[in-house]
């Protein structure tokens, strides 16, 4: 495969996501151990559950004194969006048989965002696999270190709580070129934010899928509707 600026950009972004994932993995490892999970259990979650928000929710409920069984609710609700991502990624990845079993494990926020930010199939697949494998390695290495070091690291002081939103915003940004995508993004965000006080965590982001359903099923007009904000130069 010939190198191209786009491929180099994908690899650079994947490594960037890896750095962020290592820091977040360390946060999770430290929180999990502080919550009373064993180091092996923290690592098992990073290896086998492999979905950041779900893992933090699990550790959060256990650490808050809740039974680990009650942690399953929020954990799996937060994991539910990966199922939606799978539907989006299925035609892109076209994985069959045993390969699908491996592919499925890597279907998460970051891999979906990176894959859908590309236009050509080949780049989409490359972005999925590079992001998925780099992130998996870094997330688990981070978890290992975090669980070892414990709560000695203060990730908030490092500004890492701004990492998640800025990373996902940067990943979804190219999609905003489509006028309809902007409206869908605004509607999805509004639905989710409105639901935060009303429903268990995980549900607001799932409910935002309704914006995509409406946006996708509304008839396409002949002339594009005016953008909600000034066109980005």
């Amino acid at each position, binding site marked *: 495969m010939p190198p191209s600026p786009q491929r180099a950009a994908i690899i650079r972004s994947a490594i960037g996501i890896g750095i962020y994932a290592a820091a977040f993995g360390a946060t999770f490892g430290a929180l999990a151990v502080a919550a009373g999970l064993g180091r092996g259990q923290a690592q098992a979650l990073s290896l086998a559950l492999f979905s950041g928000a779900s893992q933090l929710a699990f550790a959060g409920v256990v650490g808050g004194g809740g039974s680990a069984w009650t942690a399953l609710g929020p954990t799996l609700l937060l994991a539910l969006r990966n199922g939606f991502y799978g539907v989006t990624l*299925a035609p892109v990845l076209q994985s069959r048989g045993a390969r699908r079993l491996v592919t499925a494990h890597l279907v998460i926020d970051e891999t979906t965002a990176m894959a859908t930010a590309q236009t050509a199939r080949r780049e989409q697949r490359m972005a999925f696999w590079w992001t998925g494998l780099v992130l998996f390695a870094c997330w688990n290495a981070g978890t290992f270190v975090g669980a070892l070091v414990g709560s000695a690291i203060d990730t908030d002081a490092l500004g890492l709580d701004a990492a998640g939103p800025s990373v996902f915003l940067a990943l979804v940004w190219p999609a905003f070129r489509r006028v309809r995508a902007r409206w869908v993004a605004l509607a999805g965000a509004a639905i989710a934010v409105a639901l935060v006080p009303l429903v268990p965590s995980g549900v607001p982001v799932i409910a935002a899928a309704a914006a995509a359903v409406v946006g996708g099923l509304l008839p396409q007009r002949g002339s594009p509707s005016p953008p909600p904000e000034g066109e980005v130069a």
Partner: protein
Amino acid sequence: MTLWVPVLVACAGSYLIKLAGLSLPSSVLADPRVQRVTSLLPVAMLSALVCVQLVDGGGGRYALDWRVLTGVAAGVVALLLRRGFLVVFVVAVVVTALLRLLVPAVG
């Protein structure tokens, strides 16, 4: 520790959810309406995720941290200047960390 059982159940559940999404029959995915919806799903859900991360204080309460908001806003400026993903990430994190360092008592 019996914690292992719920840990493993959570892992299995998460994996099966991921696998289920990928395993939808291709006849369903071939429908152009389904394609239009699925192409918009990540946009809707990731935008929602960004906003929820910024406003969710946990336990069903809103909580805003102006330092994080400023950091992410700085990241948006980097995006408007057509900077790459890494620059955006670094700008947002560094601005937030600096604000925490310099203005520890406020907010």
